[in-house]
């Protein structure tokens, strides 16, 4: 199918093209308690095509993209490509060029792992989670995929990658005196990191016990908030988005190379680096979705933007020489230890309904399902109410720990402290 599409594209009036073939073998398991609710196998092929047409004066490059079903016969493939080429001719974006072949960093060699082996490792890890009579797993979903991705474009790039991708969704219950609560976690990774999974789920089981004791969150108005769980990814996601070439081109990001992200910063200075590989990441690719090689690149250094990164189109609009769409990212640790950030009064939410940072406005918001209110020498589990505020204010005083923690494709400080966050209580 791939060759058929490429041959038709070569013979077409398209000025340039990209084709991505993705073959996925997926194994899925759904559990209620420890019984198997359902098992699923997925074997699919996808062919994503993007065609490009230049305007007659050469100033514009239009594109149209879409999927060609693997069951399409030659007449249907021709018709779909014709429609895309027609549509591409109607789109007028300032002209840019596609990626051409370049040397790339070799992915560390690893033997292909069958989804069956990864699944068996997850089963074993889940069976070792230390459940008790009062804290246990309500339900678990396990998704394991083996993927092959083959990218070819009209400029001569022809690259292939194979990688595993896994996801576990776990719901934890805790109960006492007829009252039962639940906590939710979703983990993504390359293969199964059994020790990490057991450690994380054990921590969630302990949170379940705390939630049973929780009282309504007091109306604190303003308080420092300490993030020590996966919600912190959203905070660093704001920095990542603002260093994206598309955001910069669209003027959604007003950050400038060489100008601090926060004036008169009093907190830790942030360093953000795009890296090709992280241990057991589900995004360990040597090249991005457009065939550009992924290189270790510092994006922000001690609060100073150094390199915007992004897709070929927006990178060229910004005049970036060596750009790509980052797959894995690291935020370096701060000046103090995690323990040193735990001082004075602070609220430590460990479970939100859905903590969000609006990438455009910087607004943060999340309903508190479980937090620990550290007040003097007392630590009180609380629930209800919300946190809110804006990253533009927090960026000046943000503090983060020297120690780091990896969440799949993102390594960040293990503890992050924001100052003077608005707290709506539930009392």
């Amino acid at each position, binding site marked *: 199918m791939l060759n058929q599409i490429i041959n038709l594209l070569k013979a077409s009036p398209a000025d340039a093209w990209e084709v991505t073939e993705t073959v996925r073998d997926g194994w899925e398991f759904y559990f209620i308690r420890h019984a198997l609710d359902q*098992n699923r*196998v997925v074997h699919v092929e996808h062919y994503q095509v993007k065609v490009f047409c230049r305007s007659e004066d050469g100033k514009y490059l239009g594109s*149209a993209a879409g999927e060609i079903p693997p069951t399409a016969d030659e007449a249907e493939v021709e018709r779909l490509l014709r429609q895309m080429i027609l549509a591409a001719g109607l789109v007028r974006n300032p002209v840019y060029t596609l990626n051409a072949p370049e040397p790339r960093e070799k992915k560390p060699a690893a033997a292909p792992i069958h989804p069956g082996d990864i699944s068996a490792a997850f089963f074993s890890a889940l069976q070792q989670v230390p459940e008790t009579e009062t804290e246990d797993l309500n339900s678990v979903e396990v998704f394991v995929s083996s993927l092959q991705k083959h990218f070819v474009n009209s400029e001569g790039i022809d690259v292939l990658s194979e990688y595993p991708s896994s996801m576990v969704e776990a719901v934890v219950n805790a109960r006492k005196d007829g009252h039962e609560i639940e906590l939710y976690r979703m983990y993504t990774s390359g293969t199964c990191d059994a020790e990490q999974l057991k450690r994380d789920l054990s921590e969630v089981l302990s949170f379940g016990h705390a939630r049973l004791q929780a009282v309504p969150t007091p109306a604190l108005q303003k308080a420092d908030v300490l993030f020590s769980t996966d919600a912190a990814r959203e905070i660093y996601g704001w920095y990542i988005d603002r260093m994206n070439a598309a955001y910069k081109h*669209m003027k959604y990001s007003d950050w400038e190379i060489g100008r601090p992200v926060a004036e008169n910063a009093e907190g830790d200075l942030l360093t953000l680096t795009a890296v090709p590989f992280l241990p057991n990441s589900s995004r360990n690719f040597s090249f991005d979705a457009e065939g550009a090689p992924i290189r270790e690149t510092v994006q922000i250094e001690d609060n100073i933007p150094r390199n915007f990164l992004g897709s070929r189109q927006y990178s060229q609009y910004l005049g970036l020489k060596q750009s790509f769409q980052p797959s894995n990212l690291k935020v370096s640790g701060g000046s103090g230890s995690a323990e040193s950030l735990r001082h004075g009064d602070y609220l430590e939410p460990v479970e939100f309904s859905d903590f969000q940072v609006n990438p455009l406005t910087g607004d943060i918001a999340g309903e508190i399902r479980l937090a620990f209110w550290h007040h003097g020498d007392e630590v009180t589990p609380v629930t209800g109410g919300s946190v809110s505020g804006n990253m533009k204010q927090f960026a000046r005083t943000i503090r983060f720990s020297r120690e780091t923690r990896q969440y799949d494709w993102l390594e960040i400080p293990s503890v992050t402290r924001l100052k003077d966050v608005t707290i709506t209580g539930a009392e």
Partner: protein
Amino acid sequence: MKAPFSPYLAEIAPGLKKLVSLLRRRYDYVSVLSTDSKGFSVSIGQRSKSVRNETMTTERGTVVRVYLGGLYSEASFNVFDPAHPEETCRRLINRLERQMKVLEAAGIKPYETGLLPDEPETIFQEMETERLPEEEDMSALIDRLSALSDRGMAEGENLLDCTARAQSTHVCKLFLTEHRDLRQSYVYSEGAVALVGALEGRTEMAYEGVSGRKGPEIFDRMEEDVLPGVLQSLQELLHAESVEPGEYDVITSPDVTGLIAHEAFGHGVEMDMFVKHRALGAEYLGKRVGSDLVTMHEGALCADSVTGYAFDDEGTPAGDVTEIDRGILKTGICDALSALRLGIAPTGNGKRENFEHKVYTRMTNTLFDSGSDTLDSMIASIRHGYLLKGMHSGMEDPKHWGIQCIVEKGYEIRDGRLTGKVVAPVVLTGYVPDLLGSISMVSTDRCVFGNGGCGKGHKEWVKVADGGPYLKAKARLG
């Protein structure tokens, strides 16, 4: 015109029927869902333009469900030769057998479930549309969206960009068992205008959309019907203040009403959660969960929206369920397997993200019923509070009935009048029965909104619609 059923699905149907009969030799129940949905997405702004021949729900593929020894298993694939179904049959059995060996080695036992019924039934429904996405004049559409974007930029202040979006999908699905042959074809479309503006270091986005079980004709009037409201909204957001945290009298506009319906008693009564004991709603059937003014409906038959289908992804005909009747929780919504486990009838709410995904109980149209009050009388009744408008996102909490809604903005009301002050954004949180129990006025009008998607937890995205009238309630804002 009728949206024509997929010729591709019609052509492979005999081969799929043969596949069902081959698999029936081994399994006690076999169903096949095959899909062929086409569409387009166009986005035209000043700084970027794109065209795709796909949407969130375009797909072509097949999922087979089989039952053996108390366990349901599924296989998804998108390569199928209708002339040789025995090859597909052999491959599917091999793949499922390999999984069973790994499960057996781990000592995992099935969650015993009964056999789904397979009563004879035939449905062939091609729903009405004025135009089809696959026949749309893309040149004219791009010109229309470009003109909208240009006008927005000319008329707006402090604008970074004005982007017009249009997407339309022609959904075709075929569901087969040994005794059932169900076929449906319908078109739904969504359009939106998104404005991004900046003022004194502050960046904001305003967004409004149109949607419905209609063809691309829905985009013809976006410039007149949508653009003026979004332009005004952006200026309000750029000049908005922060809300003082606390509990207030609020009026929810129909889009926020819909978000509350969705998060409160949409997710809260998805009955696959009842099977796992993950929903407090199971303990409240027949009990009061809202004021007398609260009546809520859910079902694909409730509105001609983006999710107004004839049958769901398990072959259950579309329904219309009264979830809450004058404040009393009556029932929830249910997919076929959960219904079997709970000993009740399915409601037509078994949906998949696409053929590669599992079925869960999912919402379709989730709507508050109208009442007898006017918006003016509701505003006049409030001493200090807010009229909430525009939805960003929400999150369910069926186990504890907490609710989180991130609302675009609130218009201040003092002494029965709108003051002109706007606060944004607004985080509405609370305990669902408290929020619904505080509803004291309900307006006569009602709107349905179908832009965007809904996840289960943080995945499994499907199209849903929700809405209702203006509601007056008490809520905690932050």
